[in-house]
């Protein structure tokens, strides 16, 4: 063998071993040459379809008949018939559907010779499909948030409108009728004598009493309407609050641009705000918060709202019954991923029934509660990827709020 022949042999054995399928065939489909990878990929299909394995057209007829047509319709003596195209093959394999993806290039080498270069790209294709699905899911998730955001915005607008309407009703609720009745009553009392002379004292008294009664009724009605309206205003304020928090939450989902918040200073600020009320109730504050507590990502105002609410609950609970030691204990610790804060009070506490409902919308154990405070707190904390739980050993045993906030 001379060196050119050796080179050629080497080249051929490289072609035999390259990890891409290669088939050389006649324009009638009969296979002239095929490399190892080609057999590796095609042999299972030849066998499954019970084909001889000597003619490509027998196989293409089943899995991709259009390719045969393209080869036959290609008139020039040489040239590219197909350039890196993809083809999906579906085959029935013993009752199981098999889907494989191939990519191929077909080249007409000379008048009667066609080369076929191909590979099985099923795994690649499946990976790509998975990525596409994941992206799609993310897009759906994103559009959900956008939709929720839109709805919240609309409800927010409606609530503002409703608030303005109630305000108007309140303004219209003037006491003019009541004032008229009162002056009428005054006038009658002042002129009691002439009236008595005219219609007798019994009738005069009855008339004056009646007017006084109507005025009193009117007064009561006006007061009741006033308090109902105030209540409504309170509820609207709460709804606005919840909407604001939900919006914050969605914003939190959309962007991660929250600032770093020092929890120690948030707690200090909150206590400073309610300290006068605590002092008045003789409640002592005990604090154990490390100086090096790491900051958490969050919204300072919202977090302060939570602490204020929790401190307010604690102080109201402590004040709700007579007992010796009135105190709130605040302890903070850091873990690898979070800052954990416990707020324990010596207040009235709660039983299991109340515990199960603490975070139920509209539930309250207070005389004047709206049942929205704790729910708000939890929403805020959850929007910070944190948790809020409340524990109590039962009535008169006090309660503890446990917060975790992700660092």
């Amino acid at each position, binding site marked *: 063998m001379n060196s050119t022949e050796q080179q050629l*042999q080497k080249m*051929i*054995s490289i*072609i*035999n*071993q390259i*990890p891409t399928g*290669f088939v*050389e065939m006649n324009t009638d489909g009969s*296979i*002239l*040459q*095929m*490399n*190892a*990878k*080609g*057999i*590796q*990929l095609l*042999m*299972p299909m*030849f*066998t499954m379809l019970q084909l001889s*394995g*000597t003619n490509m057209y027998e196989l293409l007829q089943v899995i991709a008949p259009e390719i045969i047509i393209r080869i036959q319709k290609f008139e020039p003596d040489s040239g590219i018939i197909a350039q890196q195209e993809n083809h999906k093959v579906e085959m029935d394999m013993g009752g199981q559907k098999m889907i494989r993806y191939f990519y191929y290039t077909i080249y007409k080498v000379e008048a009667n010779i066609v080369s076929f270069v191909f590979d099985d790209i099923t795994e690649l294709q499946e990976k790509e499909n998975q990525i596409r699905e994941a992206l799609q899911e993310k897009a759906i998730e994103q559009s959900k948030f956008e939709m929720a955001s839109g709805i919240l915005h609309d409800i927010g607008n409606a609530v503002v409108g409703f608030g303005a309407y109630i305000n108007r009703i309140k303004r219209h609720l003037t006491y003019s009728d009541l004032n008229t009745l009162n002056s009428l009553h005054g006038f009658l009392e002042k002129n009691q004598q002439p009236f008595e002379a005219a219609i007798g004292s019994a009738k005069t008294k009855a008339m004056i009493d009646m007017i006084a009664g109507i005025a009193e009724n009117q007064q009561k009605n006006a007061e009741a309407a006033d308090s109902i309206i105030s209540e409504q205003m309170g509820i609207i304020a709460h709804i606005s609050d919840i909407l604001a928090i939900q919006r914050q939450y969605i914003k939190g989902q959309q962007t991660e641009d929250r600032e770093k918040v020092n929890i120690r200073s948030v707690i200090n600020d909150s206590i400073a705000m309610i300290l006068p009320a605590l002092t008045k109730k003789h409640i002592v504050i005990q604090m154990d918060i490390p100086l090096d507590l790491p900051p958490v990502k969050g919204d300072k105002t919202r977090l302060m709202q939570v602490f204020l609410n929790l401190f307010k609950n604690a102080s109201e609970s402590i004040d709700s019954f007579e007992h010796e030691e009135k105190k709130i204990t605040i302890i903070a610790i850091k873990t690898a991923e979070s800052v954990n804060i416990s707020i324990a009070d010596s207040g009235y506490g709660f039983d299991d029934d109340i515990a199960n409902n603490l975070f139920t919308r509209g539930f309250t154990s207070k005389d004047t509660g709206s049942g929205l405070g704790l729910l708000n707190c939890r929403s805020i904390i959850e929007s910070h990827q944190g948790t809020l739980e409340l524990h109590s050993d039962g009535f008169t045993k006090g309660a503890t709020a446990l917060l975790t906030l992700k660092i």
Partner: protein
Amino acid sequence: MEIEFSSKSLLTWLESQQNSMYDELPFGVVKMNKNGIVVYYNKQESTITGVDSGMAVGKNFFVQIAPCTNNFMVAEKYKLAELDEELNYLFTYVTTPTKVKLRLLKSAEHWHQYMLVHKY
């Protein structure tokens, strides 16, 4: 003793012989360890595939010598502990497709696994 491609006791016979004895057989023999590394590649096998015996020994048969067998029809079968199967297949004599009959042999009690190749 007449040794044939389809003899029942072929595996036991192969295990009991010196490697050089395989060269007397009328069909190709690829002797591998259980990781698919070629231990012996007989003369007949070299004739069928054009692969030199010296070049084949020490290499992974399914990956380096005959990638055409690296699919569920052949290579995957050797994952079984017990294997004795005959099938029709195509080999490449360099790049010329060659019709062959294969017999895949493997048993838990024997140290090696074999692939027998018969041109037809």
